[in-house]
């Protein structure tokens, strides 16, 4: 299996078949994690640049580890906004990076649209590691992978996603991914955090979490930026937590085997209680581990790799 694409900008334009291929490939890579030597020579000689315009230790580390486990050379390049202040534009910075002969650039930026812009300007493969409020496709893929691993299917599952949908790139990528794979997705948030006409993406919108949580198979809690309160998007942390935070009481309304997910980092006691976060139903730590396998799959497939060749790497290392 192969994917015929150079860039991964979002899940909006990926097909269910491509998603399936990436998830299967990630599965093959994950099986390597149990070995003593967790490294394969799949991308030996390739250069992967992590170009981060926004702080993110978690995602950057995950990509870095994924690339290293594929034996790629990895460069981490963090650009503070200070170089923008010096007059260097985004395009200048990106061209400078590409002059390092990179094959793939993993980009994170606080502005929506930056990965697409770079994909049109540069020769390297571009992987979106989160752009503004737009998409975070590898997060969406690792979430799908985690659900599939635990539930053995995605189609027909009742998934409830709760929180700051309006400002969330994780929400957008998951909306595309989950609906493409046949899940029934309900978004839950106060109306101030539901973006305009989101129903057109094939999801339901519900303001009452208790109602939506009933019989849910997956409860996906989004991180709330506490500063949103200053913009009057909700009245107080206390009220948000009461109405939209996941606690044991609300969790009981869901299916008894329901998964609890969160992209991290969590605000314990705000969108998720510690009891729920640490409960047996929580798969939050598995999401992080799966992120490495999924990012390995994405790096590998975008460089033209084939899934059925992965087994031939067995026992090899460099």
């Amino acid at each position: 299996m192969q994917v015929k694409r150079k860039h991964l900008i979002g899940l909006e334009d990926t097909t269910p078949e491509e998603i399936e291929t990436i998830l299967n490939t990630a599965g093959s890579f994950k099986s390597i994690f149990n070995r003593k030597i967790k490294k394969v020579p799949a991308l030996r000689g390739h250069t992967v640049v992590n170009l981060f315009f926004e702080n993110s230790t978690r995602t950057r580390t995950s990509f870095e580890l994924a690339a290293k486990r594929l034996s790629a050379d990895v460069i981490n390049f963090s650009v503070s906004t200070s170089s923008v202040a010096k007059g260097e534009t985004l395009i200048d910075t990106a061209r400078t990076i590409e002059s390092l002969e990179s094959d793939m650039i993993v980009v994170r930026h606080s502005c929506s649209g930056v990965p697409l812009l770079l994909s049109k300007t540069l020769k390297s493969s571009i992987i979106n590691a989160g752009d503004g409020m737009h998409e975070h496709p590898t997060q969406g893929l690792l979430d799908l992978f985690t659900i599939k691993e635990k539930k053995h299917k995605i189609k027909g599952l009742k998934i409830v996603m709760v929180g700051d949908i309006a400002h969330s790139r994780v929400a957008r990528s998951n909306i595309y991914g989950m609906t493409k794979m046949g899940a029934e997705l309900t978004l839950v948030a106060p109306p101030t955090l539901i973006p305009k006409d989101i129903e057109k993406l094939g999801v339901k919108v519900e303001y009452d979490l208790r109602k939506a949580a009933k019989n849910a198979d997956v409860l996906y809690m989004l991180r709330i930026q506490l500063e949103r309160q200053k913009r009057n998007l909700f009245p107080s942390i206390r009220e948000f937590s009461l109405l939209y935070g996941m606690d044991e009481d609300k969790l009981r309304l869901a299916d008894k085997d329901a998964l609890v997910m969160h992209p991290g980092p969590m605000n314990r006691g705000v969108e998720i209680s510690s009891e729920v976060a640490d409960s047996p139903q929580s798969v939050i730590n598995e999401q992080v581990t799966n992120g490495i396998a999924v990012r390995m799959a994405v790096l590998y497939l975008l460089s033209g790799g084939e899934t059925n060749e992965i087994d031939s790497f067995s026992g090899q290392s460099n």
Partner: protein
Amino acid sequence: MKLILSAGRVIDPANKVNDILDLLIEDGKIKKVGKGIKDKDAEIIKVNGKIVAPGLIDMHVHLREPGFEYKETIASGVRAAVKGGFTSVACMPNTEPVMDNTAVVELVISKGKKEKLANVFPIASISKGAKGEEISDIGMLIKCGAIALSDDAAPIMNAEIMRRAFEYIKQFDLPIITHCEDKNMTADCVMNESFSSTVLGLRGMASAAESIMVYRNIALADYIGAPVHIAHVSCKESVEIIRWAKKQGIRVTAETAPHYFCLTDAAVKNYDTNTKMNPPLRTAEDVLALKAALKDDTLDCIASDHAPHGRTDKELEFNYAAFGIIGLETMLALTLTELVHKKILTLEKAIEKLSYSPAKILRLNRGTLSLGAAADISVIDTEKEYTIDTGKFESKSKNSPFNGWKVKGEAFMTIIDGNIKMKEGKIL
């Protein structure tokens, strides 16, 4: 010097003329309009198959000088104007320094005159420094040559200050041109709030942020009894308020710009910063409402909001790119292609909205082919088909979303005060 434009279709909305006629220009004035005009001293230019219209007037442009000469200068701006068929432009006060004092007004007027191309009419800032706090020396600005006052540089949020501006300017009977936007509602926003902004993950401006201020400004103008002109109307709700206000007899006029009836916010799809302007591109429903409003004269005129920006302002992240697009060299073609050829407006109506209407709003003694009027004339080839190429533009800036568009209709000749300033794309 005498000139006869022979056998063109003369369309003069002010005088309800629409016929194949000759037109004689003498000493910079319109001397005679009629059939079979003969004058052995006159140069004759055959304009068979072309439209002879009053000189087009763009009442909303940004010429950027003084302060932002890398984007546009008055010299490059008036070249773009005559190339696009415009004989007069009214320029907005968001220069650096702001056009809130007579020195800048005089500079703009004198630089405009020096070029001997399109007439340049300055619009001064309502408030000092465009800060929206204290009103400018309105009387002195008008005496010095400002033809209107505007808050286009920065909309005035404080209704009390706006009220006093309307009240004070009443003595001069000139319009206040307002950019209607509740800035509290649009902070950090970069496009229209809609399904498109949801998908793109960009902060969206509610159309209500515009219509609220359209209503506020109409209410103030009505209360005071002063005229108000609403700049660049972009949404359905604004149109409905203006239509209602006109029915009440309130002295309101309004414009829209070609991009608002040619494009929707779906054009933002690939984060093309040439689709970023303020007000933003709206929805298909808004486009329909604007077309209906042009048709029933709720919208009096079409203005380009020509807003030149350099590459360093536009080749950026969508969030950081400047708002605005150029329009002087595309407005006529887009109006003809999207409104006239598609039978939304008659040709007479389109010409009226590009000449006579803005002249009336700005109290300019232009925009007609009346005998004795200044011979500002645009000769238009409505049938010429071509592809828009910003590389050939006279404007210093190229920030247009219409590059590569196939259009039908262009300016054939631009005549100002009886002198030919542009013919077949060449500036003379």
